[in-house]
């Protein structure tokens, strides 16, 4: 019996009722979507690469993260893989903002 990968959900057991509540997309989610779209339009990241990167997220994390959180993790991983930035640069940029004064 082959191992079923975490993203391969068709017929996954104990799936439960569908939560039909909808949330309005927040600005960061739209931003993540936009960045992904732009990188695709500029042929920097292909849709198939993004899917592969999302599918590579460790199982527990995949199931815990929200949809756009998964996409952000995947986009960052691909940008690092392709040499556009490093995780450390992103960490440093985030820290910069924590300490930056207006």
């Amino acid at each position, binding site marked *: 019996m*082959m*191992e*079923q*990968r975490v993203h*391969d959900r*068709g*017929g996954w057991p104990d799936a439960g009722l569908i939560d039909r509540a909808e949330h309005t997309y927040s600005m960061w989610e739209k931003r993540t979507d936009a960045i992904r779209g732009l990188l695709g339009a500029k042929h920097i990241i*292909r849709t*198939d*690469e993004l*899917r*592969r990167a999302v*599918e590579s997220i460790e199982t527990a994390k995949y199931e815990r993260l929200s949809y756009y959180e998964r996409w952000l993790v995947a986009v960052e991983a691909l940008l690092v893989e392709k040499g556009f930035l490093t995780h450390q640069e992103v960490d440093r940029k985030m820290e910069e903002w924590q300490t930056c004064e207006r």
Partner: protein
Amino acid sequence: MAAKFQPGDTVRIRVGSPPGHFRTPAYVQGKTGVVEALHGAFPNPESLAHGGDGLPKQFLYLVRFDQTSVWPQYPTTLQDKLLIDIYEHWLEPA
């Protein structure tokens, strides 16, 4: 290069778990269905996902299954169907 299958052909989905990215879900692997349509030739996602050029393009088929042949518990009184797009290299004649 001609398409190997045409609408009406009975096909079986190959079983496999390649190490990289692929788009054939586990739940249809090993199942037998009928080609509903030929969509044309498309770049291969298994190559594109890892920085490849996706060539050679693969013929992409819409394959139709009786739900009762996909799921053991599916009520046999129902005529419901499952349709999914599968690349040619995942199909064999049945």
